[in-house]
Each structure stands twice: as structure tokens, then as C-alpha cells.
């Protein structure tokens, strides 16, 4: 497969990069990988500098009203773009599902429909299902609830025993990769936004249990398409000094595609 195919296509689509606040501040490498990966797939994404956040932390805490100015700022920032791509399914889910609180102007409706999780964008808009490259490691895929159950990016164990999804397909296409077969394929990691501090005990225990499943089944690299879950899991991995590397899927994919 060659990527010139994409580069030869003409009519332009304007793609904005939405880098959620915590990724911007703490995980710039995941954001850079997202930008570069899109570039390699023939998409020159633009990062509108006035962007901040989707407002989810406030709304999930019961302060939706205080989040409304953030929602409006988000819509103003991105309304001129055909697609708004973010390396975090949770934020995208929030824009799509909970921006219903705004007056549904044409701009609001457009932005809600234009918001895409990176992996969803690659799979359903760019229609890329496999990538050339090798990643000879045992990789544990953490399915994030908002991407999986919210945006339907992967099958759910509540519905079917078939374990399949957009990111697992992309990862499986890499040479030499082995995906970890987890005991619980899609249990929540326990991050949950402000839940991680307001219910810190349960949150930590859930994360420890998720990490233990990866350790038990031999994960070397822990990945996913939602940096927030990974931030939480990485915090646990580093606290107990486990030999597991935590990387956003964009970092893996960008690293292997030349």
C-alpha cells in the first residue's frame, strides 16, 4: 500500500487538529505524532491556536452551565473546518453527545458532526484499514469506554464475543506485532475524569486491576486511542515501576510508517 494514493487526490478538505488540554500540556509527543501521522496519510491538519478544551471535566462534575462558554469557544474555533480530529475519543464523544446543550445553530451542528477521534477518522473517513510497517512487540490495547461504547469504535463484550475494532485492525496490520489477549477485554480503567480524584480509591483500584490483567498476559507496550485513560494507567505503571511502556496509538503508528 502506498500513501501517494491519498496525496494525489485533489479537492481539499480542511482538517483541524484538536489537542485536548491535558495532551497539550503533558503529552505533546502524542499530539506531534497525531499531526505527523495525518501528514503521512496525506492530510495537512491545522492547529488553531485559540483552542482550549471541550469542557467535559466541568460537565461531568455537574457544572454544565459553567462549561457553556467553553463549548461556545470550541464551536467558534472549529466551525470553519470540515473535520476536527483529536487523539482522544472521550473529548470527541463529549462534543458529539453533550453539545446538545447549546442552541443548535448550523455551526454547532456542523462542529458536532465534524468531530472525529483520530482512529475513527483514519478508519472511516480515510478508509485506511492497514498500515505498512513493523512493530515487533507484544502490545496490550486498552479500549476506552467513550470510544468503544460511545463512538462504537470497537465491539462490546456486552453484545458479542467477537473482539474486533478499528484500532485493533490497524495494529494487527503491523508486521511482527502481537496483541495481548486480556482476561477482561473491555473493562473500564477507572479514570473517569474528575472521578479519578473524587473517588480516588476505586479509581486507583480499577486501574491497578487493569494493569494487572496486562502484566498477567504479557503486555510490553500498553496503548490505546484515548490519552486520558493512558495517563491514569501510566501513573500506576510508573508508581509500581513496571516494565511496561505506555504509548498513545498515534505514537506507535507514526513511528512505524515512514
Amino acid at each position, binding site marked *: 500500500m502506498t500513501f501517494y494514493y491519498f496525496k494525489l487526490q485533489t*479537492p481539499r478538505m480542511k482538517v483541524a487538529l484538536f489537542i485536548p488540554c491535558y495532551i*497539550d500540556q503533558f503529552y505533546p509527543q502524542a499530539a506531534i505524532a497525531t499531526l505527523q501521522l495525518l501528514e503521512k496519510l496525506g492530510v495537512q491538519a491545522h492547529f488553531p491556536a485559540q483552542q482550549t478544551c471541550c469542557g467535559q471535566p466541568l460537565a461531568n462534575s455537574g457544572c454544565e452551565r459553567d462549561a457553556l462558554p467553553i463549548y461556545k469557544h470550541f464551536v467558534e474555533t472549529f466551525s470553519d473546518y470540515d473535520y476536527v480530529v483529536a487523539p482522544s475519543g472521550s473529548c470527541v464523544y463529549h462534543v458529539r453527545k453533550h453539545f446538545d446543550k447549546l442552541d443548535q445553530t448550523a455551526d454547532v451542528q456542523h462542529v458536532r458532526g465534524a468531530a472525529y477521534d483520530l482512529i475513527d477518522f483514519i478508519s472511516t473517513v480515510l478508509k485506511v484499514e492497514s498500515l505498512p510497517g513493523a512493530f515487533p512487540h507484544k502490545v496490550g490495547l486498552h479500549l476506552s469506554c467513550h470510544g468503544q461504547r460511545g463512538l462504537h469504535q470497537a465491539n462490546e463484550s456486552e453484545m458479542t464475543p467477537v473482539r474486533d475494532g478499528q484500532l485493533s485492525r490497524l495494529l494487527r496490520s503491523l508486521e511482527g506485532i502481537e496483541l495481548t489477549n486480556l482476561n477482561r477485554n473491555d473493562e473500564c480503567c477507572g479514570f473517569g475524569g474528575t472521578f479519578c480524584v473524587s473517588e480516588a480509591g476505586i479509581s486507583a483500584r480499577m486501574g491497578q486491576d487493569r494493569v494487572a490483567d496486562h502484566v498477567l498476559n504479557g503486555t510490553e507496550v500498553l496503548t490505546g486511542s484515548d490519552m486520558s485513560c493512558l495517563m491514569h494507567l501510566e*501513573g500506576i505503571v510508573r508508581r509500581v515501576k513496571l516494565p511496561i511502556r505506555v504509548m498513545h496509538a498515534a505514537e506507535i503508528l507514526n513511528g512505524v510508517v515512514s
Partner: protein
Amino acid sequence: MNHALRADKFLLDADRTTWHDETLWFVREKRDRAVYAVPEFQDLRELASGIKNHTLSRLDMYLREFEAAAQANGVHVHWAADAAEHNAIILDIIRKEGATRIVKSKSMLTEECHLNPYLIKHGIEVVDTDLGERIIQFRDEPPSHIVLPAIHLKKEDVGDTFHTHLGTDKGESDPQRLTEAARQHLRGKFIAGQVAISGVNFAIAETGAVVVCTNEGNADLGVNLAAVHIACMGIEKIIPRLSDLGVFTRLLARSATGQPVTTYTSHFTKPAAGKQMHIVIVDNGRTQQLGRPDFRASLKCIRCGACMNTCPVYRRSGGHSYDFTVPGPIGAILSPNIDMKKHSSLPFASTLCGSCTDVCPVKIDIHTQLYKWRQVLGEANEIPASKKWGMKFMGRVLASTRVYGLGGQFARKALRLLPHGLTHAPSMNAWAVARELPEAPKQSFREWYAQQPAPAAQPAQPQIPA
């Protein structure tokens, strides 16, 4: 005390937490296998949801149809606006019968109304005949799960309880022997029972019959031996027709325990010759919930408990951490309707992972309702002040590009410069009790991006394949 504090108490015993989580996950997996084996399962959920939505939209009509049909069957129908009326009606029936010995099969409604302590206070002996219920009755504990009321107890705990109350050998923990001891004990109670109280799983408007689903047959034994049967039901238990029942019985046991159907599905339509049958129909806050458009769908619940078994928070915090008759995700959307202040932490006892919604056999949008309750609680000032003002501050920061950029720079710098012991002090940073903070990079993405050379010319963009 809020949910998080009660959960922390449960978590102190890490091994027991593991055991509790794994026990309920086992039930969830059993449910999965049962669901996968029915190809039309998702259609059944849709159908059940539709029937319940329809019924709730005409609840008054179906309740009156049910009452008329039941009365035509020779059943006494009583209406109770709240728990107090419900309890008083039952005591009145018992007194008229001159009874003092009551056998009761499982009923979450009577738990909700605190019927047992009420009857005991009035000199009535009431014996729970469901094995799990009997165990927790001995221990004077509320149920920790609506289907598996004693799921928080290990067989050794049951052995200790039975040693105290039934005289089994000290240290006896063989389930077979313990169950046999309970059987022998309950046999005497069944034979002596004068009035039998049961719950109701489904009430059929068309026929006036009530349907009770159990695995132990204790409802049947109690009702058939006693002279009087009192069935207690919430107004939401109605389904329109007998032909609708099959949809729900196919869903109920599969969702609850992974069984194809409960061992007993008993239809109680009319009293046997010389006996009495009463049905008490209870509101107790349900019409108020029906009047809340965002939350009315919670009344579709058929009390299978699947949302508890799947909930990663419930499995690790135990049912008692919810401090409400119905624990778990469904309890967290029912409880604020009853007492918003007391139960204000429950809608926050969730990561909003959505698994509850996806196992719900009647498709209640549980996680969406949790989110919406949070907004109601926020508006009603029922969230902690620190959270409220923190979020207000955050709202200001995140609505402004400049303030956000400066704030981020400052925070990252502080994290890099301050000593680890300070940034990770458990007393000040709940995150850091069990987790490291992310390493603060020198540059944010936006700072990096601003330094990149602007693309010389916008390259051709890919076309969306048709």
C-alpha cells in the same frame, strides 16, 4: 458520609475486594454466554423497552385495567401513596386475620418501605424465606444486591452466622450442609406461616394476575401454605398483556444470572377456595420520577441486577457503599429522586463507562441519566463546594486561550521545580496516592507547534472516498 468514603472502607480489605469483584464478574460472564446464545437478544431488548415505554405512557389506564381484572378474580386491591401507607395496609390485613407469624419471599419494595422493622415493632414475627435474605436478616443487614442479597458474604461468614442463629457446628462452611440447616429451619417457619407476603415481578393488566420469579420456590411454598397472600408491587410493574410476559421472562434471568429462565415462574391469579389474596400497589415516589422527563425511563427497570454485576465501581465498592435499598448504577439514578441531599454522591460513583446501559435488558440509558443527575445536583448546590468553585475557576481559564496558555506554563514549571514529595503528597493530591503524575514537559504542544515553519504551500488534500 459519601460513597467514596464508604467505598474506601470496603477497599481496605484488598483480598475481599478481589473476591467480590471476581464473584460478580463471574455472574457477568455467565450472563454474556447466555446472551450470545440468543441471536435475537438485542431485538428482545428493543421490544421490552418499547413495551415498557408504552406502558409508562398510559400507566393510569393499565393500572385501572389491572385493578378491575384482579377484583373480578376475587382479589383485594389496595393503593398506597407511600411506604407508611403500604406498611399500615399490610399490618391491618395481618391484624384482621389475627396473625402473628409471617413468611415473606424476596421483595425489594418491602425493603424500600422498611416493612420488616415496622411489623416487628408491632409484635409480628416476619421471616424472610429466601436463603440470602434469611442470612442477612439474621445479621441485621440490608441486602447488598437486589438479586443476590448476601453476595457480600463468604461461606465462612454464613457459617459463623448459622452457628450463632441455627446452632450449626462452629467453623462449618460447607455450602451443602449450611443450606440444609437453613432448609430445616425454614420448613418449620413455612408450616407455621399464617400470612405470606411476596413481591411481584410482573403484573398483567389484561388478566389481573401477578407473576413472581424465584429460584428457590419459597414464594410458592409460603403462599400455598398460608391462608392469606399479600403481593406488594410498585406501580411500574405493570405490563399490558399476558402475551408480553414472554419477552421479559426471556430477558430477566439471562440478564440476572445467565440462566435461561428462573426455576419458578409462578402466576398468582385468584385466591384458592377459603383463602384470601391481596395486592398492594405502591407509588412511593414513582409518580414523581414519572414526572421527570430525563429520568422517567428508570421506571422501566425489571430489577435484574445486571447493571450491578457489570459495574466496575459496584464490584469494587460493594452494595452497602450506596446506602440505598437498590445499589449500583440503577440505584444511583433512582435514589436522588427519593432524597437528593442524602444520595447526592451516588450519581458521581461512576466513570460513565456505559456498560450498565449496554447490559440493561430494557435499555435504560443509565449512564446518561447519571450524567443528567449530576447537572441537577450541580444546579441544586448539592455538590461539594471545592468542586463547584474549582469548576467555576476552570471554566474561566478554559474559555480564554491566553489564560489557559499561561496557566499551563505555570503549572508545568511548578511540577518540574517543586519536590516530588510535595507534588505527590497524598494529603493534598488524591491522584498521587496510588499514581505518579505525568512528567511535565518543558514545551506544550502549542509551544512546539508555534516554532514549526509554516507549511510553504498547503499540499493537496485527500478526497474523501465516495
